[in-house]
């Protein structure tokens, strides 16, 4: 695995390239004054150096032995190629570069077919599956993708092809690129006999925690649990197709679950990731009903709640009134997390997000009423370029949950976790509390850590 080193050689110092920075107002809004679902107006967008969330290269690499081929302009290829390079996965990654003349020549279909074929023919070993990523350019030129894949399947009948997309211009038109990618992961599963005791947890980049209630419930009821994050071979990946149930608890995984249910005939169970006791109980009760198993005993539930309360009390005793900041990359319910912590006495001062998700609507409404002074800050607003510098001399210790919060707050005391980190159920609460204590007591090298792309991917799931 290649080591990413983002340290400079002492040649740079913190420099203010904008002499008028002191006049820049850092954008923020009290939640009491914020509008749902867009608290901030859209405009020019900034990209912070926090890069821990996964991208479409990382996610595609979850299919063991598959080869990725991106067909894009060089400006689009650059980020994905270097993602693969930093993963040490260049042997599973190739590109076809669109050049200016291709836009004029009308040979986009030919370029994809011949380019992909050329690469496959040059690979030292024939891959069982190829993910072909087309881009915005193909969408705008009306490229006949059906014909392209038909030809490729004719030429390479031993290879499974799937259509993947790098078309961020479509992020506000129908399915988002993230939703598309998480559904494409399962399009190559071949239909096979359904096993009524097999379950697939789908759409996660990170494996579900083995000690979460979800895994405990499934395994204690003798279900075989498939998850793409644990597949080591293409054959093992194919075994997911035997599942009678597809469980999703990551919101962007839902379209993939629906697609699987339509295509392979299993049942899609949508669960809610939450920090609210009642909602957790509700979603697990629905799971039990769908699987036809006994619901959790009241004593199990009260034990889980007691454990959460004990962990939260211990954490509060340690961190006291330390200001806390949360960002949306930590989990899919940042406002739900803020609500849970605030109602347990924590000093949550700020939540970084650019939009409020539907799942966080109830928490938004609650916080608006009960904690109107909670500050919401964007992450991509142009003015956020200067937020970290503004905090560089603040001095007070801030505890951050998530990389972007850590970056903007300029703190080394942070929980380094993205996309929920595989947490689910009550476990998300007590594990978060433990991680907060650890982050409070032990500093991390924030600058070094937040720059690493695809947090958790280097752990072997993409190897």
């Amino acid at each position, binding site marked *: 695995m290649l080591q990413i080193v*983002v*340290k400079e050689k002492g040649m740079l110092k913190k420099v203010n390239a904008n002499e008028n920075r002191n006049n820049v107002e850092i954008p923020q809004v009290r939640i009491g004054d914020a509008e749902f679902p867009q608290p901030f107006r859209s405009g020019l967008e900034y990209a912070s150096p926090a890069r821990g969330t996964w991208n479409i290269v990382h996610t595609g690499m979850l299919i063991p032995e598959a080869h990725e081929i991106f067909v894009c302009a060089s400006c*689009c290829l*650059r980020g994905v190629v270097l993602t693969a390079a930093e993963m040490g996965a260049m042997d599973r990654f190739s590109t076809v570069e669109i*050049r200016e003349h291709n836009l004029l020549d009308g040979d986009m279909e030919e370029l994809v077919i011949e380019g992909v074929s050329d690469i496959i023919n040059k690979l030292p070993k024939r891959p069982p599956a190829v993910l072909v990523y087309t881009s915005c350019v193909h969408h*705008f030129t009306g490229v006949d993708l059906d014909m392209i894949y038909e030809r490729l399947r004719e030429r390479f009948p031993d290879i499974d092809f799937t259509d993947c997309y790098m078309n961020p211009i479509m992020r*506000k038109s129908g399915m988002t690129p993230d939703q598309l990618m998480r559904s494409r992961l399962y399009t190559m599963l071949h239909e096979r006999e359904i096993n009524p005791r097999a379950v697939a947890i789908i759409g996660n980049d990170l494996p579900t925690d083995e000690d979460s209630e979800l895994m405990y419930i499934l395994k204690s009821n003798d279900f075989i649990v498939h998850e793409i994050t644990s597949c080591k071979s293409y054959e093992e990946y194919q075994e997911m197709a035997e599942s009678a149930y597809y469980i999703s608890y990551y919101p962007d995984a839902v379209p993939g679950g629906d697609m699987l249910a339509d295509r392979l005939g299993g049942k899609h169970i949508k669960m809610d990731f939450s920090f609210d006791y009642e909602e957790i109980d509700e979603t697990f009760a629905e799971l039990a009903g769908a699987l036809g198993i006994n619901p959790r005993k009241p004593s199990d539930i009260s034990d889980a709640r007691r454990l959460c309360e004990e962990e939260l009390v211990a954490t509060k005793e340690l961190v006291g009134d330390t200001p806390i900041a949360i960002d949306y990359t930590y989990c899919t319910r940042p406002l739900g997390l803020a609500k849970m912590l605030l109602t347990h006495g924590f000093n949550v001062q700020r939540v970084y997000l650019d939009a409020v998700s539907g799942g966080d609507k109830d928490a938004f409404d609650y916080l608006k009423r009960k904690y109107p002074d909670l500050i919401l800050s964007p992450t991509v607003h142009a003015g956020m*370029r200067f937020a970290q510098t503004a905090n560089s001399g603040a001095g007070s210790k801030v505890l951050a949950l998530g990389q972007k919060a850590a970056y903007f707050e300029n703190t080394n005391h942070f929980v380094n976790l993205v996309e929920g980190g595989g947490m689910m159920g009550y476990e998300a609460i007590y594990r978060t509390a433990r991680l907060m204590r650890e982050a409070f007591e032990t500093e991390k090298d924030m600058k070094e850590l937040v720059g690493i792309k695809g947090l958790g991917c280097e752990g072997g799931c993409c190897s």
Partner: protein
Amino acid sequence: MKQTSRITSTYSADTMGVCSALFELGGMTIMHDASGCNSTYTTHDEPRWYDMDSMVYISALTEMEAIMGDDEKLLGDIEDAVRELHPKFVAIAGTPIPTMTGFDFEAVAAVAEQRTGVPCFGFATTGMNTYIHGVSMAFETLAKRVVKDIKTEKKKELPSDNERQDVQEESFSKHTDSNQYGSHSTTPKKLKVNIIGLTPLDFSVNGQDSSIASWLESENFEVVSRWAMGSTLEEIAMAGEADVNLVVSASGLAAAKVLFERFGMPYAVGLPIGHELPGAFADLIKTKVREFKEADASAATFESREISIHSGIFLAGSDSQNSAAQNATAERKNTTDSVQPYKKGFTAIIGEGVASFSLANAVELDLGIPAKVLCTTECPEDMLRECDRITPDEDDIIPELEGAAYIIADPLYKPICPPEAKFIPLPSEGFSGRLYRDEIPNLITDFEDFLKKRCI
């Protein structure tokens, strides 16, 4: 097949080149793009991102805005951002989708300039060329629009014809004083020079930019401006004060040509790498600038000036009169333009044109090993020797490596190199981004170390 890469990387694109070129100058650069370009640029192409508060953004273009041609959204966002963030200028750079929809960058920049009162530049980059193209466009625009015509301004400041005559005479007498230029002067006055073509994509942030400036100062030059690492916009505006431009990457060439057109300012192309070359290079620049000044002074009109170095002073190239490398190797054998020495046992250098050229000459001069350049980015044709190649694609490069004894290239090229050749890694941020940043050598000061460590 051309345009395919089985296993190698891709160069940073022209869009990012614009951002990199303008990064330190206090402006606001906007990539007219949906999403992705900004995180790619800031993660892989911009080592200064964390430590300098430069304003680089995307427009967050949507499908509907592109289809409906809604330029007003971008204009409004620019107005808001300028009002809030006070940039010194605004630059708008293109990506594939605006290219396809025929977005008029110059027109939108002109409207934005009118509305904001801040200079605005439009760059019709497509995202389909290498960073060299984008950096080149940005520097060319600086040369056209930012660099002041100091001579004209000074003339305007003069109160009378008599005084103007005095100043002109003083200026002419400076030009005709041939003893003040060149390394043999007894009372040398420093030649003023701009360094053009500096970005971290070619020079990283390991001090190579400062090493070039230090070398110039040690050779009795005075550095007026550094485009664009280590200079402010105001310093670049004064670049017209220089006597000569030093072009250190292919991205500096277009700006140097503009400055030649505007001010008759000659330029040299190359990097001071190795033991023998830097001194010869400095001497050649001084000699040629002196000749140029003499010709300049004796000319009756601008049009009639005989400029012997109008094509620049190349460190190496087809014009032997202006080549420091060829002057220095006049007595050497086996290092000429002949193709023969490059068939077997040679060194292949893969990378950006000017740096690779300079390195090839240093390898030939200091080690006596033939070195050929495989130029992977945009490069002026007239810099190439017979043995060199422009090789943008993986399949262009592979056959050229046959018979190489040594290959100097970015580590991400290694998988396509023949195993019998000794691979000498020379990382470039323009190709492998931040991946090998700590291993990028300072070739200006540490050339010998670089080769020794790698046992060439």
